[in-house]
Each structure stands twice: as structure tokens, then as C-alpha cells.
């Protein structure tokens, strides 16, 4: 019987950049299982899927029919697959108290060991999440056998306070999962991935924490998603070459707890945060 491997300080993290289809959950599940198989072959201890990976992103009113509870049969194969490696999967989570969250669910050892609910729901431009989802209320680390993860879902990462919160106390790694649409411009990297790389890099070096970014690729309803999944350490060095824009792939990037500790010894920026400035800003804003 498969079991969770013993915890180690160094292990590979897999980032599954897949192209999902809205309204086709069984197709999406097959893409997950294929990516998990590849991640397992690469020795990964954690495999990360993009935002709403199991349902697809541009669901609109289809959120209601795609929403699931944690005992949904669609999750059963992923629970089973999580017996020997942790899986972070995105899905629309039907809440007991009503409403549907845009959630990232961490599975390990055949069970759910943590959930992050998206805090910031973009409702502007082409985004309409505020119509279909309820916002999460807390940002708390998710704990699994190998340590603590700060999980951010797409727009959560565009509020730089998120990574500050995840630095007090510091998580071992920040995971950003996204369904980031993109435009094409004059460079070989699409606009969306270019912006994400700035954002993820800034988050990594200011929190002195490795950031693992899993974005989706492909098209939904005529909208291009920009791929470019990537991992970067707390000093801004690439942990793996960024994924291409348009291709499904499984990136494998290293995690090293000693390297994280060493970087934080050299650069104590998060420990120097001036929370009295935050307090004053909150008072000024009347919050």
C-alpha cells in the first residue's frame, strides 16, 4: 500500500501547467491523473495544479453546476493518488453555509489536509468572479508532511500584503496558482506571463521565500491563458526555467529548507517589517 514518504528537508515540487476545459470535469480529471503520474515519476513530493483546475475557469453561471463538496466522487481518484504525494487542486467548493468558494484544496495521505479560499475576487474587465463566488476570509498556512505552504490564488497575489502576512510567521514556501489570461505582444513571452514573472519575483525577494507559480495554458471560450509557470528562490534565482506559453507541461523545481534558512539569514527583510506603519495606515483608512 502506498504511504506518505518520510519528511525530508529537500524535495522536488511539480508544477502542472495544464489546459483545462470548462464544463468538462471528467476530461480535466484525466489531465490531472496524467500529470500526477509524470510528477510521481520525477520524484515530486508535491504536485501543484492551476486555479480551478478541475472545473475550468470561465464557467460563469456554470459555477453552480460545477461546484462540488469534498466528498464528490470526482475527487476520489485524486484522494487515492495523494497517498504517496501531496496534491494541490483547484475547484469550486460548495460551502456548507451557502455560496461557492474558488478554492485550492491540499490532499495528502488520501485525505484533505488544507483548503485556501480565494480572498480577492476580480470583478472588472473580463473578470466576473464576484458574481459567482464568495470570498475567503482568512489567509492561513496549509500544513503537510513536508512543511508549511502559503497558498495564494491568482488575484490574491496581486495584493502584495498577502506575502507579508505569509511571512509572519514565515511559511516554508509560497504557492501561487493562477488562471491568468493573457494578450500577445511583441516578445516571445505573452503579456500575462511577463507580468506574473515580475509579481512572483517581487514576492519571492521581498518575503525571502521561494515561490512556486502554476498557471494554466490553452484556451477557454476564446480566451488565451498564458502559461509561463515558474519557480524562483528567495534571492530571485530561477529554480527552474519558466514553462512555455502554449504547451502543457509538468515542471519540476527543487525545494531546500536549508537554502531557505540561509537566504533568510543573509536577508532579514521580512523581520524588519514596520507594523506600526500598517497600523497608522489602517487608522487613516478608517479600517
Amino acid at each position: 500500500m502506498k504511504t506518505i514518504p518520510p519528511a525530508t528537508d529537500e524535495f522536488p515540487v511539480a508544477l502542472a501547467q495544464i489546459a483545462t476545459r470548462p464544463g468538462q470535469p471528467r476530461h480535466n480529471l484525466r489531465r490531472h491523473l496524467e500529470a500526477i503520474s509524470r510528477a510521481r515519476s520525477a520524484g515530486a513530493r508535491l504536485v501543484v495544479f492551476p486555479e480551478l483546475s478541475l472545473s475550468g475557469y470561465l464557467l460563469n453561471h456554470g459555477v453552480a453546476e460545477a461546484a462540488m463538496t469534498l466528498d464528490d466522487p470526482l475527487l476520489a481518484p485524486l484522494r487515492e493518488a495523494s497517498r504517496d504525494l501531496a496534491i494541490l487542486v483547484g475547484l469550486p467548493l460548495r460551502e456548507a453555509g451557502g455560496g461557492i468558494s474558488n478554492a485550492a484544496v491540499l490532499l495528502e495521505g488520501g485525505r484533505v489536509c488544507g483548503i485556501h479560499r480565494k480572498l480577492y475576487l476580480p470583478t472588472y474587465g473580463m473578470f466576473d468572479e464576484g458574481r459567482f463566488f464568495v470570498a475567503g476570509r482568512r489567509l492561513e498556512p496549509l500544513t503537510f508532511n513536508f512543511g508549511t505552504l502559503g497558498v495564494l490564488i491568482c488575484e490574491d497575489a496581486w495584493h502584495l500584503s498577502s506575502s507579508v502576512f505569509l511571512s509572519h510567521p514565515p511559511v516554508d514556501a509560497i504557492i501561487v496558482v493562477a488562471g491568468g489570461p493573457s494578450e500577445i505582444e511583441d516578445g516571445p513571452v505573452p503579456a500575462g506571463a511577463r507580468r506574473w514573472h515580475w509579481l512572483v519575483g517581487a514576492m519571492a525577494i521581498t518575503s525571502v521565500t521561494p515561490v512556486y507559480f502554476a498557471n494554466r495554458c490553452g484556451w477557454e471560450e476564446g480566451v488565451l491563458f498564458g502559461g509561463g509557470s515558474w519557480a524562483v528562490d528567495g534571492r530571485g534565482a530561477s529554480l527552474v526555467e519558466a514553462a512555455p506559453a502554449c504547451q502543457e507541461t509538468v515542471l519540476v523545481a527543487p525545494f531546500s529548507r536549508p537554502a531557505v534558512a540561509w537566504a533568510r539569514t543573509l536577508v532579514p527583510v521580512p523581520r524588519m517589517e514596520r507594523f506600526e506603519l500598517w497600523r497608522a495606515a489602517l487608522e487613516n483608512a478608517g479600517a
Partner: protein
Amino acid sequence: MRELPALHLPLLAEALQGFLAEELAASGLTGYVVGLSGGIDSAVAAALAVRAVGASRVIAMALPGPSSDPRSLADAHLVAESLGMALEVRDLSQPARQLAELLGCGEDRLRFGNLLARLRMVALFDRARTLPALVLGTSNKSEILLGYSTLFGDSAASVQPLGDLWKTQVFALASYLELPEEVTTKPPTADLWPGQTDAGELGFDYRDADPILWAHHEAGLDAARLVAAGFDPVLVDHVLALYRRNRFKWRPTVVARVSASAINIDRILPRNPER
């Protein structure tokens, strides 16, 4: 400002090929049907489809009318040959004349042109039904915004891979795709009557209009700021008038909402649910 921002053409082509491959896979159908006019838009759309799903899954049709320029058919053959596709030719002259006589529109050039464009649509969708396949659209953003298309005629399609590209970007993509020079360098035409050209009908060239459209539609410049930026005031007025007048073509029909479940208003759902 006077020129459109450049696009990375290899990435653009790769992305649009992915779009066509994914749309076909998600639809569960077998391929694409495209009408080859001998012009640049249909050549680019067909080339992307062939690269995406293979020539054997793209049916090319040439659908000449009674007054089509013979060179158009020759150019359609050239495009099909360059892409490794067989070309099915269906001459619509006789049915077009018969229908025009029945409807009494043979003398009205615009009505007859629309009729022919819609007959082409009928032929493409009918052929698509036999496979079944998706109809590959060839409209570009400039045409759509200027209203230079026939509603439910050439604008009717299952997918529009070029619908967010300005015409001048289609020219650039055609060069990147190495399409036959005869097709990429000739003046754009709907080929609905002898000597017809887009520039002749619109009164301007896409290379002059596209930067104005881009600066207005994408960058938000109004007429005064466009003129201040150096654009010709007469051309600005002309282009913006077409832009406003033809906005109804962005959304060809409107459903009257009388319930709380109106389609595409209260119920916006993914197009291709699992079967």
C-alpha cells in the same frame, strides 16, 4: 501611435493554432470547413487550421459567383495547393441568379452581394454538416469594427481565429506563414462584383485606418485627441462614423429578456459541456 504595436508572430501563430486544435477537440467534431476566396484572410485562417489539425481535416471550398474575378479562383487553387489541401469548387452563379430573380434583387449590387455572401454561408454549413465539422471564420477585427461584412454571410462561422487581429496584423501573419505572394500582395476584396475592392468601397486603406481604430478602440483616444496626435481629421471622422454605425454587428442578434433565465444574460454557460 501612427503604427500598430508589433506582435510576436511565431507566438501568435502557435497560440492561434492551439485555439483551433482545442476548439475542435472540445467540440467533438471531425474537422474544419473553410471557404477559400483567394484572398488573404481565408488563406491565413486555412493555413492556421492546417497547421493545427492537419490538411486532411480541413475541407477547402471555392464558391465563385456570376461576377467573381477568375483570378480569385486561381488564387484559391494556389492557396489550397500550397497548404496541401484539395479544393472543392461549387459554382454558385446559377443558384445566385435564380434566387436573385425570385427575390427581385438582381439589379441592386449591394443586395446581390449580400445574397451571394449568404449563399456561401449556406454551402459551407451544409458541407460542415456532412462530416460533421466546424465552419472556420475568416473575419478580422478591422472588418468587424467597420461593419465591412455581411451579417449571417461571411461573418457567420463556428470560430473566428482572426477576429481579434487588425487587418494589418493579418498581413504580417500571412508573411510569417509564407503564403503565396500573389495572395498576400493583392488589394483586399470581397469579390462580390467586378473591380470591387475594400479600399474602393470604404474610401480608405486598412493601413491608414487601423492605427486610428486601434488608438480609439484600444487606447481610448477620442476624435479630438486623434487629430491632436496627427491623424487626418476627415479620415478620423469617417472611420469613427463607421465604427459607431456598425456596432450592432458586434452582437448580431438580441434576445428579449422577459424571465430571470435569459440565455447569455442570466445563463452564461460554457459552450462545450461534457457529453
